[in-house]
């Protein structure tokens, strides 16, 4: 018993040392650019700085109070929720449909998959540049062709009630093909004989979807939902190019708000408080889906 304990104690020490030596490069960069910044941002959120390089004054929760008193921030928060769910869920449904329709590998399907995948490769800034002109009033692609059908579109990017939805259209176009790939991979895990048996039993397409495909794809759906939400919350390139958050903050998103506070208003305290709210949101998304993520990244499997 005693010797066993000593052996057990001595051997892990060497392997532990090796393990940490091999993790060291990663941990160094994670410490510099993930862990320390989190501490830093929490500290900054409790302080104010009058000018760059000036002294930091402790202000307690003042930055948070100001933040939530700011209508622009509350708008950005609400927009972000609408934007996140309003883009991820439709993209996910489309992606699932694409994947199921194109599951069989043949020349045509491979080509069509590639078409759906093209927008993924485009930098978001480039996609936004195209959509900037697509949404142009009267002469833009949308309005011009709607006019031919004797229809008139709204002011896609200029109307505060519409602009966020226009931007969401761009995001769905950009991301659906990406999610499709995960579903294509997920569909490979569904055994073909499950379908055959169901067809023999007389199950229609909807029944097969409901009782075979969806249950098998449940983990994939969870994974895509989480990755998608984490993804879209941290993307604002299109807002930068298309609307700069306007008109009247109708397309402002949290990260862009933080950017504005930091770069345009030089309000580091408020930017930090805004970052913390974002972190809380991202943490909530991650924590509520930890089991899905763990399963995807395989911590618990053997």
């Amino acid at each position, binding site marked *: 018993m005693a010797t066993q304990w000593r052996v057990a104690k001595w051997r892990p020490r060497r392997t532990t040392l090796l393990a940490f030596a091999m993790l060291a490069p990663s941990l160094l960069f994670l410490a510099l650019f993930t862990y320390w910044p989190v501490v830093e941002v929490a500290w900054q959120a409790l302080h104010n700085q009058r000018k760059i390089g000036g002294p930091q004054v402790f202000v307690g929760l003042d930055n948070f109070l100001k933040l939530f008193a700011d209508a622009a921030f509350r708008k950005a928060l609400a927009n972000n929720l609408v934007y996140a769910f309003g883009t991820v869920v439709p993209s996910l449904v489309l992606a699932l449909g694409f994947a199921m329709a194109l599951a069989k590998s043949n020349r045509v399907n491979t080509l069509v998959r590639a078409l759906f995948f093209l927008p993924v490769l485009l930098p978001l800034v480039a996609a936004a540049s195209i959509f900037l002109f697509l949404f142009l009033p009267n002469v833009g692609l949308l309005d011009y062709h709607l006019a031919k059908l004797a229809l008139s579109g709204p002011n896609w990017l200029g109307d505060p009630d519409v602009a966020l939805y226009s931007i969401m259209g761009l995001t769905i176009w950009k991301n659906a093909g990406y999610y499709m790939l995960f579903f294509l991979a997920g569909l490979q895990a569904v055994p073909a004989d499950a379908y055959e048996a169901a067809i023999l039993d007389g199950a229609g*397409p909807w029944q097969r979807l409901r009782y075979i495909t969806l249950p098998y794809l449940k983990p994939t759906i969870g994974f895509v939902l989480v990755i998608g939400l984490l993804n879209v919350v941290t993307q604002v390139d299109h807002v930068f190019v298309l609307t700069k958050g306007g008109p009247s903050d109708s397309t402002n998103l949290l990260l862009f708000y933080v950017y504005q506070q930091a770069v345009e208003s030089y309000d580091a305290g408020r930017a930090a408080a805004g970052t913390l709210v974002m972190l809380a949101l991202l943490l909530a998304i991650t924590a509520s889906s930890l089991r899905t993520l763990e399963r995807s990244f395989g911590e618990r499997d053997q």
Partner: protein
Amino acid sequence: MSVANREISPRLGYGATLAIAALWMVPFIWMLVAAFNPESVGAGMASLVPRYIPTLANFAEAWGSADFPRYTLNTMIISFGILAVQLVTVTLAGYVFARIEFPGRTICFYLFLLQLMLAPVVLMVPNLVMVAKLGLYDSLLGVMAPYFASAFGTFLMRQAFKVIPRELEDAALIDGANVWQRIGFIYLPLAKPSLIAFSIVSVTAHWNEFLWPLMVINSPDLRPLTVGLASFTRGAEGAQAWGVIAAGTLLVSAPLLIAFALFQRAFVNSFASSGIK
């Protein structure tokens, strides 16, 4: 009845998918048509059908009004520089999480998981301070450094290493191979598909990134393609410039699109099978 059911709906679904695919192409086609259009002024700009003799004038103008070769070089340095360091860090960390049991392993795993949701751009304000402290503000290295460790890559490599039979490593161990030799001669060659998949994901992500480089870079000649394109678009805004913008957008997007066209199968397969179930 049931035969009709099972035949018709999937066909309808397939037809709808093809129709949406056509719709998905429209922005690309429009960009292509506009980029070669000699008159991108006024009413003709919304045309999806080329009714002109193609010209390269838009490309010439775009090429001349922004330093695209320089931007491309900067983007390449950023993307491939990040990848080179990442391949080392994720291999080492992936091996640890796949094969070594040690106290603190679970905590380390969660610490890595934390980075999955905290893209450096979320922490842009403190990260910018850190980059400045390290003397890397307004440098390509400053854009790259926050990405040198990758939780995503670590988990991917861990997954790939785990399915490699332990017996192979044990055999090498008996032959006297040290840990570096075991990784270099057994794990890396067998995990090649995952390495390629990760490389594609990583390069694509950093090739397309915008806000973080925008924060770090101040000098115009250090701009990557995305930042260059955004300032170019803003500079030439207005309907009459659509042809030039389209040409510029095409120039910026072309490298990845060409790479995709060349390696399409590997591209899609590697994304789809990047170890995520």
